[in-house]
């Protein structure tokens, strides 16, 4: 069974799965994985299926990944499934292994210390794909990790994959990456955001969870100089909860910033209480959620 870890802790030779239900959270973790690869002289290949390569590029750029520098030098390469696994026409475990060997050789030729592979696995559900090749691939690919040159995060969307496949994925990957969750129940989720670093909150936040919010903000401000408080998926926030944000901002040393990403009713409430006017607070307005 996979051991839970943070994306920042992944190193050469690690083979991790990322099972997700929130596409934003997946992109956040993938962006951190790509960013850490680019800063450690590693070649990074992203194979994307659920969103087109151009959109993945834009999503990475929005999260602060230097795609404009890394794509022209081909340190970062972003492919669709058709351009990578299916480029040879037939999709089998063997052709996928050949493809990865090719990426590894290319990384070595270009002088990179290794290869990071971000693989969106939902191609498995295409009619053309032979689902029986997935277990073969995930088992055989292990040999590349033993050499310590490959690091990979294979992404499984919980909405798409059946329970048996998800259990299989958890079993063949030594590691599972996930966002650090500070609090989660059916109404509210408070978790760490990796790119840009900060806190992401979804659902509804009120006086009952001020303590969790306070702890999450304090940790984010300990770990990073400037943070983003991502409230884009928050539908409701009350005065007690915003009080915790005011306290955190009041403790912000001069020159440090808290970017608050929000829209709709939450932004309206923040404006009513004057949060956007505080020194150090920058509002990044998103389309309203309601």
């Amino acid at each position, binding site marked *: 069974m996979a051991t839970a870890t943070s994306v920042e802790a992944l190193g050469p030779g690690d083979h991790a799965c990322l099972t997700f239900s929130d596409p934003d959270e997946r992109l956040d973790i993938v962006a951190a994985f790509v960013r850490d690869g680019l800063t450690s002289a590693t070649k990074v290949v992203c194979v994307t299926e659920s969103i087109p390569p151009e959109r993945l590029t834009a999503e990475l750029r929005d999260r602060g990944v230097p795609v404009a520098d890394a794509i022209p030098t081909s340190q970062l390469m972003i492919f669709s499934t058709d351009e990578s696994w299916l480029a040879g026409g037939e999709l089998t475990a063997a052709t996928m292994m050949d493809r990865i060997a090719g990426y590894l050789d290319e990384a070595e030729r270009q002088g990179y210390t290794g290869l990071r592979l971000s693989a969106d696995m939902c191609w498995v559900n295409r009619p053309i794909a032979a689902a029986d090749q997935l277990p073969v691939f995930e088992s055989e690919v292990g040999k590349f990790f033993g050499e310590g040159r490959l690091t990979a995060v294979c992404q499984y969307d919980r909405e798409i994959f059946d329970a048996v496949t998800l259990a299989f994925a958890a079993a063949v990957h030594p590691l599972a990456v996930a966002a650090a969750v500070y609090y989660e129940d059916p109404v509210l989720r408070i978790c760490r955001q990796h790119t840009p670093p900060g806190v992401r909150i979804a659902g509804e936040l*009120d006086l009952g969870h001020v303590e969790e919010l306070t702890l999450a903000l304090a940790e984010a401000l300990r770990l990073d100089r400037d943070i983003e408080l991502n409230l884009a998926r928050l539908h409701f926030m009350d005065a007690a909860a915003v009080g915790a944000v005011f306290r955190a901002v009041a403790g912000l040393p001069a020159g440090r910033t808290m970017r608050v990403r929000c829209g*709709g009713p939450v932004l309206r409430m923040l404006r009513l209480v004057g949060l956007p006017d505080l020194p150090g607070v920058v509002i990044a307005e998103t389309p309203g959620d309601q």
Partner: protein
Amino acid sequence: MTSDQPVTAVPADASDPAGNGSGQVSVSLDQTFCADNLFALRNAVAAHGGSLGLPSARVADLVLLAHELASNSVRHGGATAAVPGRLRLWATTDPPAVVCEVTDVGPGLTDPDRAGRDPVAATAGDGRGLWIVRQIADAVEIVAGSSGTRITVTFLLSR
């Protein structure tokens, strides 16, 4: 007692809102609350706001207003599962408005006239609830006595 030009007839007796002879008042929501069910309370208020034909941004305002009143009762007014607070919502036709009334048995505000009038210091973690209520509401009436507190706010449908 304090009042910002009440724009509508408010039932004098909290236990008998519809029976005051105004002929236009009928309670559409009457729900008790404590700290554990504010989510359900917000959902109920949102549903009623939507049924009144309010645009979604105004429904969100009404929900925030009702929540802050209830939150105030939970935090300062002694509303608990054993002795819950009570929120009632009704529509009036002249002028077209929603009235939201929250009652609790807590000690009440020491200075109802001033409560929520002034912006709160940026360093404070608390005290913005009634400020928000006063920003959103078209009229606010606070009755604080030894037996508890009743806050009644008027929210005009067209604004």
